[in-house]
């Protein structure tokens, strides 16, 4: 063995040892039972392992990928500046309380937030939890008299600005209130009339009719009143008496509504400062109704019987155990500084993810089988060497992915399967060249040397062009595509090592013993 070979052997051994080192955590981690792996409350040991293991993309393990856009259009410059950071903090805290293993909350660009929730199956619930602004306000409900006067003004405005001719005289005189099922301090509208009322209330110019310090608020959808399903409309004071920024704790609880003890709701405890405010507001407004408004919907509007010094408040409505619990989480974490909108969602169910892994594995194994069969039949022993180099190539590829902390995605698996085919290419070029030199009457040793030297330039050029594409792909791609680009690039770089350096070493080793080589199985 000459000096060159010693260096090569050292390099291969070092690379292999490093690879084993980087892949061990992945091996241990994926040997664990799935329940232990995906638990949100895993031991430190497991989460250490998870950090060092190859990450599976959401398309393989199932989960949600959301891109949120924070609507800062209604904020001033100072507020807008840190709105994204605050929103991220609040979303992170909501997700933490919800309980997801390894969530990712990350800023993207100017006003976007990426949220990734691996392994999550309750899609709708997560969306509600993350996307809810959760702005809680306490607003004073106008008295029945005041409400009637506001609705009366709307009626007369609509009567003169009617857009459609109506035959019924009652409807002509009072276009809005004739659709009300009842009108006390709030109006109740039957389910079937809701679209009409919504349309009427959207009549242009209506805003100027409602006194500036008041506003109309819809109640909760699908409410019941005297056994009728519908929705209420409240007239409330525009300026809130207080907001939900002063909530200390919030918990889901049963029996908050005396009329329906089996119903879920959320009970809140206010902070000491909030308690003082709440006592003042309730003290000043005994016998009035106080609407509890969540994201612009009046959840309920209980009558204040007496001053409430304890700082206890509650939200009731159409809740079940789950939605009550989620609302409590959201209230505890606080309101988002601005509304967010989901502008991109990619969710993969766990069953599809598992199928994808299965299919990817199958395609990989069959692809390997086909390539192995061809190489061994066509190049015999040299083919076997190329196959060993290919397997080493894939092994290094996985190790690099673990080392870089990159993510294996479904397109990434496709990249690996293609790498299987591409990684023997370099050896094909070398072997064909060796055969050609042998045909031209060169000695075996000379042929091998010339084969490697002359094929090298071609291999380099071929790899560089593919890597150029890979780099553009990486730059352009979203998560899964990036995964593909990484496997492609790393696979090709590792290939220069395995297909050129490693196989050369083996050839030298084979030819080096016994002086003059007479036969080469190629």
């Amino acid at each position: 063995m000459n000096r060159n070979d010693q260096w090569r052997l050292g390099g291969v051994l070092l690379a292999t040892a490093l690879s084993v080192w980087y892949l061990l955590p992945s091996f241990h981690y994926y040997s664990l039972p799935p329940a232990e792996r995906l638990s949100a409350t895993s031991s430190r040991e497991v989460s250490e392992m998870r950090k060092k293991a190859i990450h599976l993309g959401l398309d393989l393990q199932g989960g949600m990928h959301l891109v949120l856009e924070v609507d800062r259009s209604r904020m001033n410059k100072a507020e807008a500046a840190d709105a994204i950071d605050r929103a991220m903090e609040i979303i992170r805290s909501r997700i933490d309380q919800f309980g997801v293993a390894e969530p990712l909350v990350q800023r993207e660009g100017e006003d976007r937030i990426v949220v990734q929730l691996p392994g999550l199956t309750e899609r709708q619930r997560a969306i509600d939890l993350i996307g809810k602004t959760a702005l809680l306000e306490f607003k004073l409900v106008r008295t029945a008299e005041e409400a009637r006067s506001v609705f009366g003004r709307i009626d007369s405005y609509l009567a003169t600005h009617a857009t459609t001719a109506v035959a019924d005289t009652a409807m002509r005189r009072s276009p809005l209130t004739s659709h009300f099922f009842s009108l006390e301090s709030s109006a109740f509208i039957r389910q079937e009339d809701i679209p009409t009322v919504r349309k009427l209330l959207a009549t242009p110019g209506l805003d100027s009719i409602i006194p500036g310090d008041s506003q109309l608020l819809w109640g909760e959808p699908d409410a019941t009143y005297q056994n009728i399903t519908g929705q209420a409309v409240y007239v409330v004071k525009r300026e809130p008496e207080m907001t939900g920024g002063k909530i200390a704790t919030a918990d889901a609880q049963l029996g908050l509504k005396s009329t329906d003890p089996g119903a879920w709701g959320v009970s809140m405890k206010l902070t000491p400062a909030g308690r003082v405010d709440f006592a003042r507001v309730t003290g000043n407004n005994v016998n009035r109704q106080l609407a509890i408004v969540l994201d612009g919907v009046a959840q309920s509007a209980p009558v204040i019987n007496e001053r409430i010094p304890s700082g206890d408040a509650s939200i009731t409505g159409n809740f079940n155990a789950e939605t009550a619990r989620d609302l409590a989480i959201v209230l505890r974490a606080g309101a988002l500084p601005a509304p967010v909108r989901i502008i991109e969602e990619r969710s993969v169910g766990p069953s599809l993810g598992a199928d994808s892994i299965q299919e990817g594995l199958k395609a990989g194994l069959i692809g390997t089988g086909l390539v192995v069969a061809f190489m061994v039949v066509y190049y015999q022993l040299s083919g076997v060497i190329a196959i060993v180099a290919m397997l080493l190539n894939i092994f290094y590829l996985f190790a690099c992915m673990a080392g870089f902390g990159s993510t294996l995605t479904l397109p990434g698996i496709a990249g690996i399967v293609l790498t299987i085919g591409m990684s023997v290419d370099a050896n094909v070029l070398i072997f064909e060249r060796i055969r050609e030199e042998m045909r031209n009457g060169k000695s075996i040793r000379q042929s091998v040397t010339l084969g490697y030297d002359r094929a090298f330039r071609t291999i380099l050029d071929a790899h560089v062009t593919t890597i150029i594409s890979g780099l553009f792909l990486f730059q352009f791609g979203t998560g899964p595509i990036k995964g593909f680009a990484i496997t492609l690039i790393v696979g090709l770089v590792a290939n220069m090592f395995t297909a050129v350096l490693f196989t050369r070493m083996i050839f030298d080793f084979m030819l080096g013993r016994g002086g003059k080589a007479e036969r080469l199985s190629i």
Partner: protein
Amino acid sequence: MLQLLIGTNIPFMKYRRIAYMFSSALIVATIVWLVIHGGPRYSVDFTGGTLLQVRTSRVVPADQMRAALDEGGFRGVELQQMTGDNRDEYLLRLKAGENLFSGIQTTIQKHFPGVTVEQRRIESVGPRIGSELRQKAIWAVLGSLAGILLYVGIRYEFKFALGAVVALFHDVLITLGMLCFTGREVSLTVVAALLTIAGYSINDTIVVFDRIRERSKALRKETHSRAMDIAVNETLSRTVITSLTVFLSALALFIWGGEVLRDFSFAMLIGVGFGTYSSVYVASALALDIWIALDRRKGIKAE
């Protein structure tokens, strides 16, 4: 020793006009298709919208499913039943950004009692993100083509570089055409395949051109087209074999890799196949014609 395609002496260049016609026909067909249809059929990645993949507990014929959805008020939904073992799975394409899964689930379960619906995948892309991704995809394709052009331009003479790059456009365009003709969608993964093809399909061309460069002294006495034929024939076995191994990998992906990767692997198969053909009949043949034309301008009679 098993050997294929060794010592061949096929007069490839003699038939290059036929190949030009064949390639031009395919490219013209692709462009006509694209013009008529206003571009390829983009997936929700690029148009914005929602793709819903659901699995039912038993196979429901697509027309019955469509009728049920129409009746349930989901008229704008495009329904596609998967094939083979996955006939219990459906792809639903919706315009709206909002998710209508629960409504669709209720409708299906009401219409076909006993059938349960499982949600397998949702891809929902807002219109703005869609157009952003489209922009980025176009830039990525153009950027990588330019990058490869630059690299090949530095490493090889002008005539070769030009031939190689035309071949590259040829491969990518024809692959796109085949995707269009077979009614497949252009998604993010398909764009990834197109970029990979751009990087990979030039490999065979490089093999041929390297050979010409290497043997330029020995081949000087031959006519240009003879020199090109010799180079192509001498490298024919490796051109075919390197493509074959990648073709086998892509084939395994296409057959066994699952529905999500099918369009990707289809594009790879076409791209690798045409990439081999084009290295001979587009890249080499064009380089030859440019070579002849350049010499003619210099007043050398080449042929």
